């Protein structure tokens, strides 16, 4: 039996290393250690072996069994490795480009809007939205715009036909006309009418002017307005907000300047200039960036807030103008052409 075991091990020694595939391996494994395998056959002979020889022979069989198992394990590892290897194609060339689209991009106007909203959220402003189709009341009357103000003219503002009906845009009076809002200030009115002071909101959105499209004008563009209503709000607070916004946006070296101006819905009113010579394509000392002021008492009275109690400020600016300044873009039309060579620059 010892000789038989030796012969068996010698056979295994020569057969296993030459096995290439898993079926060959499984067949060989069955031949040696399967239920009808040769080792199993030898083990069955153990019963007829004299008792005194049993321990020695048993030891031999166990050793042979262990050696066979080692062959089996090694072969299985080798075949598995070969199988994995076979799953691979030729080595890659890392320098070849991926055929998949490389990245998506936010539109620069979105980037600027979101950056402004982030800056303003830090000081407690909540972002609100309102309809782009508005009525004369929300766009003009409530903002203290005189009845014969040029902004109301059909020459400057887009109107909808008198029979137009909008199911989800409320009118103040039944016979007022629908129009495309000329500023996002209408959202301030809707917010004040809906809510209660104190209020601290920022309303970004699309606005419309009946204007010739050129490098700096567009039939629709975007604004962003802030409104803060509380007790004891002062001009100094307003200046602090503007300083904060533009220092956050453009760096600490940025200065802002107020120039008194006229808007119907604020008093006093200011235009805001920026001094930011470190920006690209800025060659003037001061650049006009927006308008602001203390909410006019008339506006408060109109929305039912007691002007003796409530004070507030409002600030508005054009997002295209800001984006042009930030990125050094010189033509507003690029925002609306969506040339991929333009869009991909803002990844």
């Amino acid at each position, binding site marked *: 039996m010892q000789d038989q075991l030796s012969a068996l091990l010698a056979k295994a020694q020569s057969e296993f290393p030459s096995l290439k595939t898993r079926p060959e391996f499984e067949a060989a494994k069955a031949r040696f250690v399967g239920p009808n395998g040769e080792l199993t056959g030898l083990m069955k002979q153990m019963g007829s072996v004299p008792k005194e020889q049993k321990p020695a022979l048993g030891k031999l069989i166990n050793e042979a069994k262990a050696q066979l198992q080692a062959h089996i394990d090694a072969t299985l590892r080798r075949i598995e490795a070969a199988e994995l290897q076979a799953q691979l194609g030729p080595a890659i060339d890392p320098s*070849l480009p991926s055929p998949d689209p490389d990245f998506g991009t936010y539109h620069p106007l979105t980037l600027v809007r979101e950056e402004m909203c982030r800056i303003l959220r830090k000081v*407690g402003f909540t972002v609100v939205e309102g309809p782009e189709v508005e009525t004369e009341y929300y766009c003009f009357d409530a903002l203290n715009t005189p009845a014969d103000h040029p902004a109301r003219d059909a020459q400057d503002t887009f109107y909808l036909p008198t029979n137009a009906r909008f199911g989800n845009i409320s009118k103040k009076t039944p016979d007022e006309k629908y129009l495309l809002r000329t500023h996002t200030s209408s959202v301030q009115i809707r917010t004040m009418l809906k809510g209660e002071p104190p209020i601290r909101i920022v309303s970004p959105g699309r606005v419309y002017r009946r204007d010739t499209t050129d490098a700096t004008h567009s039939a629709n563009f975007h604004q962003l307005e802030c409104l803060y209503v509380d007790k004891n709000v002062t001009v100094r607070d307003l200046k602090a907000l503007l300083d904060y916004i533009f220092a956050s946006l453009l760096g600490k070296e940025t200065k802002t300047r107020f120039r008194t101006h006229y808007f119907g819905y604020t008093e006093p009113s200011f235009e805001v200039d920026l001094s930011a010579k470190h920006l690209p394509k800025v060659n003037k000392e001061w650049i006009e960036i927006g308008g602001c002021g203390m909410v006019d008492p008339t506006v408060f009275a109109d929305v039912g807030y007691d002007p003796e109690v409530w004070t507030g400020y409002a600030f508005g600016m054009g997002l295209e103008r800001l984006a042009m300044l930030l990125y050094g873009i010189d033509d507003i039309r690029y925002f609306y052409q969506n040339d991929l060579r333009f869009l991909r620059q803002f990844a």
Partner: protein
Amino acid sequence: MKISLNWLQDYIDLSGISADEICRAITLLGFEVEQVIRTGAPELKNVVVGEILTRGKHPNADKLSVCTVDVGPEHGGVRTIVCGAPNCDAGNRVPVALPGAIMPGNFEIKLSKIRGQESQGMMCSAKELTISDEAQGLLILADRPAIGTPINQVLPPGDTVLDIEITPNRPDCLSHIGIARELSAWFKKELRYPAVKFEPAHATEARPDLLKSVRVTAPEECPLYTATVITGVKIAPSPAWLQERLRAIGQRPINNVVDISNYVLHEYGQPTHAFDAKKIGGSEIIVRLAAESEKIVTLDGKERTLASNMLVIADAQKSLVVAGVMGGENSGVDDTTTDLVLEVAYFKRQSVRATSRKLGLSSDSSYRYERGVDPHSLEEAGRRAIDLILEIAGGKVAGFTQRIGADVPWQREIVVTPGFINEKLGFTIPEADMKAAFEALELTIVREEPTESRGPAWTVSIPSWRDDLDRPIDLVEEVLRVYGTEKIPASRVLAPGLVGDDDAVVVFNRRVADALVGQRFHECVNYTLRSVRELQAAATPETLSSLALANPFVEDQSHLRPTLVTGLLDTLKLNQSRGVAASRLFETGRIFLERGDQLVECVAVAFVIAENADKRSWLKRELADFYTAKNLVGTLAAAAGIDLSRQPLVAVNDINAFGWQAGHSALAGDIKYGWTTRFGLLDLAAVKAAGVEGKVYAGQFAILPEKLTSAETRRRYQPFSLFPAALRDLALVVDEALPAADVQKTLAKIARAAVGNAFALEGVGVFDVYRGKGLPEGKKSLAFSFTFRAADRTLTDDEVNAVFNKIQDELTKSTPYQIRK
């Protein structure tokens, strides 16, 4: 509005203050300086008077001369200068720019060789010195100033003219005196009004033959009208100083009387008008409303058709002037005029504005009336005009000025305290500075009474030209303006916690943009207003007509958009036409949909995925298809809290599917219920018509903004089984047209019934669709996989098989589906 700094000096001493400082003052006072125009010669160093001593021909150029020029011993004596001007004759004294001079346009004079001949400077024309457009020859200094004199001492001083934009609340600043008043407050310099000399007592006897009567039949539109007869004037060109002033501010001098009227307008802001007395038919002036369709030929030679709400100045027969807007062609002053009627009037701004708008006719006069002239400065401006006419054109005032209309009453006082002002400002301005600001603006403090805590209560008298000041808050701005907005102290933003949630619309837009950018889409922004041509395929004619604006500005931006997709197609077209590969694009924005007989404004997001036929790649990828679009739309709907997998999807089979391809697109939802979506392949013909090449898959999701809510229900954890699942597959032969989801639903229902409470059906999903060989015509095979699982044990084959058999029995019994063996 143009303001000449030379002219301003008549009313305020600005000597020693640079133009830059004046611009800054005007800017900070609240007016925009749009342009600074310098006239005359700038400061020119190394440009001096020289005398041409000799003129010889240039050896190498026919048109050039070589001159010797004496520029004086301190500038190097006699120099040789090559000159191309025809008039560089010996004996002429001319401006000579010496090497080192910087000429206008920033060009430096250097020693040079011109065609081989050295030239030690340049003799200058008037144009080169920017004092006129005369470029034909050298500027000959006929007065023969001393040789070597710096040229600025010889040339007339230049002027600086500011083009200023005046805000609509400050019509009082539409004049030189108005601006001077503001500057006097800023620079704390005295304001000098012109001395007005004419007194009614100086008038000679009245001339009813020239002006019999003045009547105003429209006192509402014309509250005050004055007319003065001046006889014996001599019409001639204005004196040089007057012409120069008008030219400086861009006005063309015409004759002395017209120029004076113009001058007073720009001095006081008060329009006046001079009629030739002879041309007033019936010697009668009637201020009346025009007859409907009445015609008048205005000074610009155009015939205007008037309407019955327009005010005119007429004589007995015809209208002479469109009141406050423009004179008529045949009533004005001309070279033969000897007697004139001077009109100084107050017309209501609304009336002038409406007329000017309607006629599309604007003038310096209408511009001022529209914004409001001060009726209380009217008389003084009138007397100033009379002074100037008598002084320059001669003549005498005949009789008293006829004055029709009552005085427009004016009295306004505002009570304000320093405490109030400081409260609004948030910082303290010393009382003395506040008082100084008021005084400088001629806002007189007429009474001062103590208050408990807010300092003295000042009663401020408001001058008639400051109609814009009405409430204490208005005075806050006046104080701050003059005190200086630059002195507002810096501080930190105080932000008491008011933080609410961002609007649900904002949150939705962010979510979908984040999702699509993450899927490597590029965000686009297109115009809301689109053309009919573009939208034709995207909406019914009825919808289109309801989307039309009442007053579009240009033809291709006439309608509100009912979809974002056409804009994205436009973007694809633009990129394709520029040879730029563009495939995955999206946009968020408002669209307008019909709901019943109304429109609704919706929040929408849309994407397109275009085939890039041109774009070759070394490695092929599978293109997008309908199910790519379906998957993306599911993501967009989820951002609005809608689970698209639970919504019935409708295959679009209409041939006319608003730009979507029949048989290859689908829709879900309905704006009636608040939201709607369409997705799939865009109509091939429509895409081609839009100028886009290749197939385009797209999706759009739209929802009413009020349907979006930011409140989310918090999810609850569901326990799940830790035991293995049992799977069974089943293929069914069904009608070709039957949606897989219908079959799936039926299967799930039957399976759930078969399982009962024994264990759970985890899911039924389609994993194969087959058509063709082995199946009858009009049928397809759908293969489903069932997943069973128990919460508490491993399922045995027997119990699963029992259920599976039950399912098949039930299917055979109750459905037309055939089990495919």
